[in-house]
């Protein structure tokens, strides 16, 4: 076999590839589903957010804009003091700046931010890439459950608070 010059063997490689079906997936007619952990878009669960500002501070691009206000909520038990809670007024993520690094999702202590594999949200106008609180809440529907781990892992699978 080594007597066949490399030139001829190279032709064989390309011919064999030509006879096999092509690997192209014809997007947008056919869509491939990305992995569940794929970092497509960030979703917000507004009820869990306490406006602690950890995500906004830890963003390398400073693309999260948060505003909130304090208000009094009814006490947990009857006869108790009213509690002070923070409610979020404005929570915008500017996807024109976002690096999709995931530090905000990781750092949130209250499970308010989640990754979703949705990626088809490009806009003709760059200003429309600023997703506000409601839009981020809509993305929450697309957040998949966390996948189980490989054998030997000590990590526990977290649950997405639906």
């Amino acid at each position, binding site marked *: 076999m080594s007597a066949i010059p490399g*030139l001829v063997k*190279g*032709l064989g*490689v*390309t*011919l064999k*590839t*030509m006879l*096999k079906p*092509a*690997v*192209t997936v*014809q997007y947008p007619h056919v869509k491939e589903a990305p992995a569940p952990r794929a970092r497509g878009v960030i979703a917000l669960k507004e009820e869990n957010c306490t406006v602690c500002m950890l995500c906004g501070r830890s963003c390398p691009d400073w693309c999260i804009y948060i505003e909130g206000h304090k208000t009094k909520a009814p006490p947990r038990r009857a006869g108790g003091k009213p509690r002070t809670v923070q409610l979020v007024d404005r929570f915008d993520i500017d996807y024109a700046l976002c690096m999709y690094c995931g530090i905000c999702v990781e750092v949130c202590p209250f499970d308010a931010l989640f990754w979703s594999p949705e990626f088809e949200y490009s806009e003709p106008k760059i200003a429309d890439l600023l997703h506000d609180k409601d839009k981020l809440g809509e993305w929450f529907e697309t957040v998949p459950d966390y996948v189980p781990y490989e054998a030997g892992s000590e990590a526990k699978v977290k649950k997405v608070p639906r």
Partner: protein
Amino acid sequence: MTALFALELSYWQETVLKVVGVLAAVLIPAGAFVQLFLFKMVSHLQSRLGPMEAGPHGSLQAIAEVGKFIQKEDIIPERADRFVFKLAPYVVVMTVLLVYLVIPFGPDMYFANLDAGVFYALAVSSVSVIGVLIAGWASANKYSLMGAIRAAGQLIAYELPLVLAVVGVVIQAGTMNLQGIVAIQAQGEIFGWGAIGNPFILTQFVGLFIFMVAIQAELTQTPFDMPIAESELITGYMTEYSGLRFLLFFIAEFAAVGAFGALAATLWLGGWYLPGLDFDANYMNVVGPIILFAKIMLVAFVVFWVRFTYPRLREDQLQAFAWKFLIPLSLINIVATGVLKVVF
């Protein structure tokens, strides 16, 4: 050819028909090669699909490309020699059209039946070198000129193996008339067995190999495409051409694949004849072109297959390959053919 349709045409009517016929004979293979080989075959070689949107499975992509080129702006560099700049693409296209004149497509289907058909075809195809040179010169671009000179050097160097390879066939056939060569291959016998005729590929395989390598270089395809794919020359002599003028160069390149493929098919593969069919029948005037077209596609497939598989040679390596390997090999082929022709 007019006897085919039993028409009585005057000379000028016949000429018009021949002009239209030649244009069709050139553009159809060129378009087919571009669509099939450049778009689809290379895509599948590279494990992808190629154009799929224009027409079903991208079959109308070539027409879309033509439309795109036609509607582009016609830019001529300020310091370019306008007349020569405009003339150059037409020179190259004209030489390809002239080659098609002598190719026989059937027993009566030819545009001109020259006795020195082979000589004429090779001579006329060399004129394209002039077109390349004047394109590079008229572009008023230092790098285009360098590319044109390199291309001219390469094309001239590979003319010799091209011609010498064909000489072997001419010696064996005993005639330079292309229709006669097809007849000899069709009616010849191999040691008395006449079932498949005597296609010259069986005896002149060395000549065919040299011819295929030489046409790869004549068409400036990889591995000999240093003039066009040079990293500092962009597209060499074609750099300053845009729009319809570039399209003409493009058509000329692919039509030349067809022209040389037709020559190879006629000289080595038996031309428009397929063994088992009647040589003189009238229906061969319709079936013949189809057979020849199929053979041209086969030759073109090999040309493009090699083009998309191999890396390219450096200019000096390319010249050394021509002068130190191909030409001596073709001379040995001629000597061997001559000796064997006398012996047998």
